[in-house]
């Protein structure tokens, strides 16, 4: 038997590793760092087998269920889209954590049914029951962290965590999300606050805190709250049905001792009230199922249809817009160059030619006048050079071409009439277009700081991490910079968007102003 189990585990692991390596080597991910690749693949999945194994370890280890879970996990991972699995993992962790609380409740009530929870045993005579609580917190924390960790790349997590009103014409707050509040209170009651805290005021306090947390999530993450609400209704309903069916045995497994359980409006202390609980459970279950199609908003429906299509559609819209911006920007730039050349260098060269022609005519008759004209021509040529120098600086600053972003920004800091410290941590150079865009972004931000903020010091930091070039420009000025009002920052944002870059402004009135720029790019290793 152990040999069989071992073979089975090895097969599962080999399968898992094979799929993982194949996904990691996908060509579109090649330019990214390993961490980024994992993130793009929604690493949450790496923990799926771990979660499955934990679920298998918890409860009675009768073998079949415990052995089947890794297999199911790997199968889900192989065949389901990445966003599904990455959503499953954090949520499973949270669910396993909540299960820990239920088990501890039973332990506190003195149930003699011993069960395993991760590394500890619960039930009468268990050693280290506090380990259960610790593990439960840990599972919930890791689950929530993973949710946050993947939210930038996982469309599921992003949709769930998105704040309302961020996107123009975005998601309206689903009405159903408000149901999260009563559901939360019910769950707290079910967890049996009296057996945790006795009659002290901690019990009602906990209920209040949980309800407040529910209200906050309804406001901050309405989409998440709506999803959680209907999921909770369904789960609570199932629990109620199971409670009534198995009464007086414990749910879901037999136990010689059965405590009272408060389930919604029913206090289950005997057969009749258990039946009432079952009816309530059925009602909740029905209501939860009825909610599903109504609580799902457009974005979730789009996700359920096809994440890839939805993602691609968003990407196409974004690319179309940034491409139009880039073309407009380039055209405006060319017009500016043409005008500068026309009014500057070209006009001066005409004047130069005329001076020389006049000097040529005078040279035989009036040498002094001719010499004066030639001197004038020379002056003009100096001015032409100065014009062209400014023009070149506006296209691509020479230091940038010579040395790259780091020294170009250092040179910029020296030319800025503001004490500016520069700290650069780059192992190579980004592509010249990215460098140029970033350089002009920093130049514009520093120029703004000089013009508007009344700052005395500025601080520029440039580094590369997680596949993106990151820049922060901080000044100690008056703050209050608003990208929506100043067209300069808006223009910068557009220019950076061509490279999928973003610009964030944090400038409370009274300062300080922090401008953060992030452009995804790879670094070419310098020779």
């Amino acid at each position, binding site marked *: 038997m152990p040999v069989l189990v071992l073979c089975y585990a090895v097969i599962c692991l080999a399968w898992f590793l094979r799929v993982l390596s194949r996904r990691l080597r996908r060509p579109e991910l090649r330019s990214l760092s390993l961490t980024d690749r994992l993130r793009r693949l929604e690493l949450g999945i790496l923990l799926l087998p771990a979660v499955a194994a934990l679920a298998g370890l918890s409860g009675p280890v009768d073998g079949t269920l415990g052995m089947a879970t890794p297999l199911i996990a790997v199968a889900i991972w192989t065949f389901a889209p990445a966003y599904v699995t990455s959503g499953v993992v954090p949520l499973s962790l949270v669910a396993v954590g909540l299960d820990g609380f239920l088990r501890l409740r039973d332990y506190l009530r003195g149930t003699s049914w011993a069960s395993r929870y991760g590394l500890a045993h619960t039930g009468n005579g268990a050693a280290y029951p506090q380990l259960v609580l610790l593990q439960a917190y840990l599972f919930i924390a890791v689950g929530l962290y993973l949710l946050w960790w993947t939210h930038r790349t996982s469309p599921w997590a992003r949709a769930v965590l998105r704040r309302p009103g961020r996107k123009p014409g975005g998601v309206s707050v689903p009405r159903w999300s408000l149901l999260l509040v009563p559901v939360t209170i019910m769950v707290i009651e079910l967890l049996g606050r009296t057996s945790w805290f006795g009659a002290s005021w901690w019990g009602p306090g906990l209920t209040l805190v949980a309800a407040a947390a529910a209200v906050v999530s309804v406001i901050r993450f309405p989409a998440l709250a709506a999803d959680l609400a209907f999921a909770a209704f369904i789960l609570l309903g199932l629990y109620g049905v199971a409670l009534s069916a198995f009464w007086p045995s414990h749910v879901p497994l037999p136990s010689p001792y059965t405590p009272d359980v408060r389930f919604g409006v029913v206090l289950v202390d005997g057969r009749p009230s258990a039946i009432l609980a079952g009816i309530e459970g059925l009602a909740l279950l029905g209501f939860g199922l009825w909610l599903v199609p109504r609580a799902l908003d457009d974005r979730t429906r789009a996700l359920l249809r096809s994440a890839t299509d939805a993602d691609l559609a968003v990407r196409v819209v974004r690319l179309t817009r940034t491409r139009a911006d880039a073309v407009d920007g380039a055209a405006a730039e060319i017009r500016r160059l043409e005008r500068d050349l026309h009014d500057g260098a070209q006009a001066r060269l005409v004047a130069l030619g005329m001076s020389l022609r006049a000097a040529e005519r005078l040279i035989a008759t009036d040498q002094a006048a001719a010499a004066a004209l030639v001197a004038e021509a*020379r002056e003009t*040529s*100096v001015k032409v*050079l*100065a014009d062209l*120098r400014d023009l*070149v*600086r506006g296209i691509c600053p*020479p*230091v940038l*071409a*010579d*040395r790259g972003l780091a*020294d170009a920004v*250092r*040179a910029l800091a*020296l*030319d*800025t*009439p503001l004490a500016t410290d520069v700290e650069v941590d780059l192992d190579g150079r980004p592509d010249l277009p990215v460098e140029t865009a970033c350089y002009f972004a920093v130049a514009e931000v520093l120029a703004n700081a000089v013009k508007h903020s009344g700052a005395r010091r500025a601080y520029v930091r440039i580094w590369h991490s997680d596949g993106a070039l990151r820049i922060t420009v901080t000044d100690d000025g008056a703050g209050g910079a608003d990208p929506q009002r100043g067209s300069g920052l808006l223009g910068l944002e557009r220019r950076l968007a061509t490279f999928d870059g973003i610009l964030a402004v944090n400038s409370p009135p009274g300062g300080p102003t922090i401008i953060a720029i992030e452009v995804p790019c790879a670094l070419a290793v310098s020779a």
Partner: protein
Amino acid sequence: MRVVIAEDLFLLRDGLTRLLRAHDIEVTAAVGSGPELLKALLEEKPDIAVIDVRLPPTFTDEGLRVALEARQRLPGLPVLVLSQYVEQLYARELLSDLAGSVGYLLKDRVFSDEAFVEALRTVANGGTVLDPEVIGKLLRRRQADEPVAALSPREREVLELMAQGRSNAAIAQRLYVSEKAVSKHSTSIFAKLGLEPSDDDNRRVLAVLAYLNS
């Protein structure tokens, strides 16, 4: 005076060579790339090198790098770096060894050949010559600072010329005042900036530049 010239455009290289020869200056080598320049400098050990910043093979700041490297191997080797643009960053790098004998000028300055040849001689004699544009930028950056703001307009003019590397006599001539007046101004400037006064022109320039660059 023996000079090595490095400039990749033939017309300019030729023009420079002729300009210097017209002033009885011996051009021992005129080269067109970074590696050639380094070889020429190490072999010829000229009195001064006139170097264009942008040189093949990289067409970036090759000339500047060779100049810095050559000065590492031959400390104090006088170099006059020419460029289509001037950068404070590059000026700093050239000045950083505090050995003097450095010039950094816009290419346009060769148009006025007397001033150019004078700058060349100053650098060859251990002086420091910086383009007025660099000095202007330096002063602009420091103009809000207390000590610089405390200077009178005339003192600022003198400071600017001093930082460019001009002697008292040259400053006096330029501002149409007596040499004595210039030296009075310079004493006052040094007092206001809190610098050690010095009669030595070179050391004076370096002190001013170090102050402005800090």
